[in-house]
């Protein structure tokens, strides 16, 4: 193995690879930061450029976009309350409140450090434990996928803010949106009302843009630049940076989130969004400042950003060893491997070990360079919030509509996004948080399909979820998570108005 690592290092450290990493990261960060463009689109756009390249520089370009995009999405999540990609939805919960408090620079820095930490941990695990994890992942099937996504749904409780009932209602609305379209098991078309365009389902991007960006714009539509209290008061963007104390405070969240991100990433069909939500929930429960989550707590940003970048390395494990994509981006990476004449699957480690180790080592470089670029760029884009809102809002609208349209070249989807935007605006006015809704949309389809597939496998018996070791483990984790929420809220209730400790 050491020979392969050395050979791989030689290829990964070539100037071509480093150049490609730099190009990939820069474009990835920009693409990730634009609402309506995700890392998937960036990878597809750059794929033809890789034809003429050697495998390692080619994969470095694409992995740079992948990692940069996952991190870049946090920038808009923090600054304008619109996650750049679905994986950053949890970051809005605390990142945006921090911006409102003038602490945008601090939040952006924490997002960068956390992404770096998660990415490095994941890349190291991928490098040293890929074959072992692959053996475990191979035994995963619909029951395990179901239990992990169920775990994801169970955290609605802790992200719904003050009102749990509204949180659950939001989650249900999200699941309902996910149900629209053709059912993947029986083929029945649901809730399309005879509209052929709805039969294809509602794309996640349209939901994301409508739910966050358009609704945010609507809710500020009475904005008057002459009467902007922030501008009148001349609130300065604090130049306050992340302190050592805060890093120490977040360290535990980083470690836990990186582990969660790695496990979720290695599970096919999940992705960064679920990892970020589960980690956010765990961090909230373990933190001393749990009650401050959702109000601008830096640990919240740390947890969700470490987790979503921790999926970037581990999604490569099922991809390279089994040929199974861990999320949408890696599904396209499979295509990139094929174009290089490498078929992802069990034979890949046997036939191209040097190249694979080169790619895994390159992933470490990707993360290091991401930190360097991030440090150089963060002060620049923390100034984005200086752009007058009347200009900013117009730009956001243009990006969003262009992004939704270009995804499938469909004006219908733009219309859908607009409707979702209006609905989301009304829900916000009624005191709903939109984050449980996006969670429901992301997970609804996965939960249903995997539950039904499990039932087919077991002949209709629910025992399949408890007789398989890993599915039992994930199920227990979900139950503990729900249990601890109720335990805490009962305890709080009993204490009544007693002043908070700590």
């Amino acid at each position, binding site marked *: 193995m050491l020979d392969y690592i050395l050979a791989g290092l030689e290829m990964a450290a070539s100037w071509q690879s480093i150049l490609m990493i730099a190009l990939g990261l820069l474009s990835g960060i920009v693409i990730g930061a634009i609402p309506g463009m995700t890392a998937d*689109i960036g990878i*597809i756009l750059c794929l033809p450029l890789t034809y003429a390249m050697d495998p390692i520089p080619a994969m470095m370009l694409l992995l740079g976009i992948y990692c940069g995009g996952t991190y870049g999405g946090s920038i808009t999540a923090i600054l304008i309350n619109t996650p750049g990609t679905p994986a950053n939805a949890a970051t809005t919960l605390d990142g945006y409140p921090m911006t409102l408090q003038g602490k945008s620079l601090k939040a952006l820095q924490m997002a960068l450090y956390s992404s770096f930490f998660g990415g490095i941990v994941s890349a190291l695990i991928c490098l040293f434990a890929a074959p072992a994890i692959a053996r475990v992942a191979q*035994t995963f*099937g619909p029951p395990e996928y179901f239990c992990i996504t169920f775990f994801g749904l169970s955290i609605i409780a802790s992200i719904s803010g003050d009102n749990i009932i509204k949180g659950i209602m939001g989650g249900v609305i999200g699941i309902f949106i996910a149900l629209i379209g053709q059912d993947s098991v029986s*083929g029945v078309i649901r809730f399309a009302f005879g509209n052929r365009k709805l039969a294809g389902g509602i794309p996640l991007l349209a939901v994301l843009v409508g739910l966050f960006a358009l609704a945010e714009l609507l809710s500020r539509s009475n904005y008057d630049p002459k009467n902007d209290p922030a501008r009148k008061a001349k609130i300065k963007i604090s130049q306050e940076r992340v302190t050592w104390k805060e890093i120490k405070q977040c360290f535990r969240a980083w470690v836990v989130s990186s582990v969660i991100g790695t496990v979720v990433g290695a599970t096919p069909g999940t992705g960064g969004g679920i990892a970020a939500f589960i980690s956010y929930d765990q961090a909230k429960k373990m933190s001393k400042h749990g009650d401050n989550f959702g109000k601008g707590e830096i640990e919240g940003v740390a947890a969700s950003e470490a987790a979503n970048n921790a999926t970037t390395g581990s999604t490569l494990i099922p991809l390279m060893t089994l040929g199974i994509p861990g999320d949408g981006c890696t599904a396209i990476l499979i295509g990139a491997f094929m174009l290089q004449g490498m078929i992802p699957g069990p034979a890949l480690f046997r036939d191209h070990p040097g190249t694979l180790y080169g790619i895994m080592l390159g992933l470490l470089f990707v993360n290091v360079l991401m930190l360097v670029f991030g440090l150089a760029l963060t002060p620049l884009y923390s100034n984005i919030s200086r752009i007058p809102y009347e200009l900013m809002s117009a730009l956001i609208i243009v990006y969003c509509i262009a992004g939704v349209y*270009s995804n*499938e*070249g469909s004006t219908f989807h733009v219309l859908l996004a607009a409707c979702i935007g209006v609905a989301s605006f009304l829900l916000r006015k009624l005191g709903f948080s939109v984050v449980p809704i996006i969670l429901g949309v992301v997970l609804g389809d996965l939960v249903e399909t995997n539950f039904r597939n499990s039932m087919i*496998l077991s002949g209709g018996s629910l025992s399949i979820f408890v007789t398989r070791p890993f599915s039992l483990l994930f199920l227990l984790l979900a139950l503990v998570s729900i249990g601890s929420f109720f335990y805490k809220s009962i305890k709080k209730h009993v204490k009544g108005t007693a002043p908070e400790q700590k």
Partner: protein
Amino acid sequence: MKMKKRFAFLLALALMLTALTACGGKTASSTVPENTSGSSQAEEPSASSDYPNKTVTIICPWGVGGGADTIARKITQVAEKYFDQPIIVENHTGASGTIGMGDAFDAAADGYTLVTANGPLFSLTPKYVDVQYTLDDFTMLRGMRTVSLMVVTNPKTTGFQSFDDILEYGKSHKLTYATSSGPGGDQYVVSSAAFISMGIEAEPVVLGSEAEVVNAIASGQVDLGLCTPPSYYAFQEEGTALAVATFYPEDVETKFGTVKCMENWGIDAIFGGMDCLAIRSDTPQEIIDKLNAMLDEVYADPDFTDYLKEMGYNLWDAKGDEVQTFIENQMDSMERYVELLESK
């Protein structure tokens, strides 16, 4: 003043990004060399004699990295040697491939838009999705590859050594099988028809990708699975996967020996998977000839044939008429299977 300058810079940057958004999307196109943008402005060719004078696009109705996409991209790469203009692949995905087909149908019949098609786009999908095109609207240019759909099982966990074992077991037991095509998909329809005609009760587990199907078979989660070579080869070497029968119209030679087709058991469930290149049928013959001449060169180039062999794709060097007949036959059989399923 300084503030203003910085603001102007940010605004410029933002405008640049806007332009970038506009070229985003599910299209994967390579950058077009400078010289072609000039000539394309010089109006489209009135005569087909100066064809080609701008970039030719192959629309792939499926995602990046699939078989048709990979082969089409290889064709564009090899064709650089034989064609005066660049050829690019764009993926117009969605609605079971009918979005891309619709775009190819809407494009001008000037020979600058080709499409990668397959049988089910004509024989099956139109039964479930509204489409504007018919088989008559397209001329088949050339076959790309054949795909033989296999029934694969894991002899170690199921104990099945042959298709006969499965038929025997299925008489008294319900089977589960994994497939990567959902309702209305080709595999789903053909396999459902097959199980009905075998008198076996079987339930499909629809998984997201073929790799997951293979994995579900090899790890013993399902009794059977439907997959295509070479996805299961690595597992057959280990002994955790075994192809026992194929839906292809005739027996198929694989790395591990002959796999018999369904006809050997008297089961009416035939499905020959294939991908082909097609173009609008009202394209001038002169242009079609030029494209065929280019494809002749590409298909004879070892760069192309070796790549396909290495990837385990089964090159199908069939001329347009042969492809046409193949699709017509498939339309007849699919008609029967859909009727059979609907009568159930």
